[in-house]
């Protein structure tokens, strides 16, 4: 007898998995429905995928999302990498610094978003990518910081010491020893920051200006306008991209062990 198996845990778990996946399946199935009303099933078709491919607003929004996520991912990863290296040794106020760096994780996003909006209005920064990129970098920092920090903590310090004993200067030690060892952490941090920025809706919603709509902002306004198979098709594409990213990073993580 497996002692950990209490009655019903298995049944509840299977029910939870059904609850988690039924909406996803329904969403995908309806994206192949030829009928515009999305309620009546007429026949299977790829029309909606064809339509989103040629829709110029979707194309622009996707482009904006990618530009924003790339800029935020790179910016946040560079800042987080430097911060993680600086946080290696003990110093006074370290706990406080760490808390500030991770604050965006716990603060309600809508509050930070409207507060940033007020700051930008007060100092006269126009809404759009110039406002969105710094805001995205700020809330992506902890997502990039945590994996890099974890990797750094798991690193054997004697490797760096050995490099320095063998007369490598600081730069060479960093370039040839620290950086290669840290690389998986940096990549994980970048991926997390990139995906977080790509998925973000609220900050972009408040800070986007004319012409800088991102994909999530576009989807939100489309949902507000009504249910269409077109939204299902975009959602399915986004879902597949997310799942592909998660599975890849999961497999990469397994390989490293």
């Amino acid at each position, binding site marked *: 007898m497996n*002692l950990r198996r209490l009655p019903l845990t298995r049944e509840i778990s299977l029910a939870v998995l059904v609850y*988690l996946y039924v*909406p996803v399946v329904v969403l995908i199935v309806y994206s192949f429905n030829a009928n515009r009303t999305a309620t009546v099933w007429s026949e299977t078709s790829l029309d909606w995928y064809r339509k989103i491919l040629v829709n110029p607003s979707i194309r622009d929004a996707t482009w904006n999302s990618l530009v924003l996520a790339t800029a935020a991912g790179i910016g946040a990863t560079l800042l987080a990498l430097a911060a993680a290296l600086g946080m290696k040794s003990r110093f006074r106020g370290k706990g406080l610094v760490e808390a*500030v760096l991770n604050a965006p994780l716990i603060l309600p996003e809508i509050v930070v978003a409207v507060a940033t909006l007020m700051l930008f209005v007060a100092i006269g920064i126009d809404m759009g990518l110039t406002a969105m990129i710094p805001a995205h970098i700020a809330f992506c920092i902890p997502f990039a910081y945590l994996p890099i920090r974890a990797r750094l903590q798991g690193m054997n310090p004697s490797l760096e010491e050995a490099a320095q004993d063998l007369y490598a200067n600081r730069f060479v030690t960093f370039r040839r020893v620290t950086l290669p060892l840290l690389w998986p952490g940096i990549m994980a941090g970048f991926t997390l920051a990139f995906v977080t920025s790509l998925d973000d809706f609220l900050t972009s919603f408040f800070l986007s200006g004319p012409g800088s709509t991102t994909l999530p902002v576009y*989807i939100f306004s489309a949902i507000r306008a009504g249910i269409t198979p077109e939204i299902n098709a975009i959602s399915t594409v986004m879902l597949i991209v997310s799942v592909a990213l998660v599975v890849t990073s999961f497999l990469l993580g397994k390989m490293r062990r």
Partner: protein
Amino acid sequence: MSATSPFRRAGLVGPALLVVLILVGVPLGIMAWVSLLGRGSTIGVDWQSAPSFANYTKLIWEEDFDGTLLFNPTYLSILWRSVWQAAATTVICVTLGLPVALWMSSLTRGARDVAILLITIPFWTNLLVRNYAWLIILREDGVVSQTANAIWPFGPVQLLYNDTAILIGLVYSFLPFMILPIYAGFEKFDWRLLEAAYDLGANRRRALMRVIIPLAMPGIIAGAMLVFIPSLGSFVTAAILGGGKSMMMGNLIQLQFGQSRNWPFGATISVVLLALMMLVLMGIAIWKNRQEAKR
């Protein structure tokens, strides 16, 4: 390795720290100040107005024509809905998350990895997409609604645009945040304790109440924090599944910055939201201290 000098450290940590302070800390300060100001005529804020607590009293009382204050439950009811929706979401997530985490920990190693992946995939899906999926399922002309209406004999059933729809969406959005910390706790478990409990004649119920739940408590608390706080500040779920009728604090904030163009009042609700969140975090910190004192 040589110790990092304070200057080097400042050069390394400084940029990230400054970015967070300038783009998160300073805005929150400005927000607290704006919550004391009056609304502007063209843009959202009248920066010149004299600071007062008028926006905070507006949350509870409404000023009549002749200046007498009347109790106004509109905003309080939205605050109250946010709190109980977040609390109900947390309770449901614990009730579902604990058995799932327990079940996951009883699997073989390979199956566990697959289970973790299955639980995390929906969490990596965009929040808008997750809530939109429920909009499709619960909509009026959908299969679920039609079946419910066919079975339910007492008048039409409305599944969308109410508190239940929001609750379903919130649980769906945040459930993985509860399952994973509880499961992480179970992974470190010494399961011989459970065996000992059974050997000493405990039945399953007793083993659950006296061994499993106390040992799972740190995970449950961590999960509760990760579920309650984002639920309290959520916007997307109520915006999509509440349909503007059932509002939460996040939606009220958005309304003030959008249609109502009353930024100071929006800032006030944001400050209240932050204060509520702080209260919860403090409560958890106190509970943790007490637990450690017990040991």
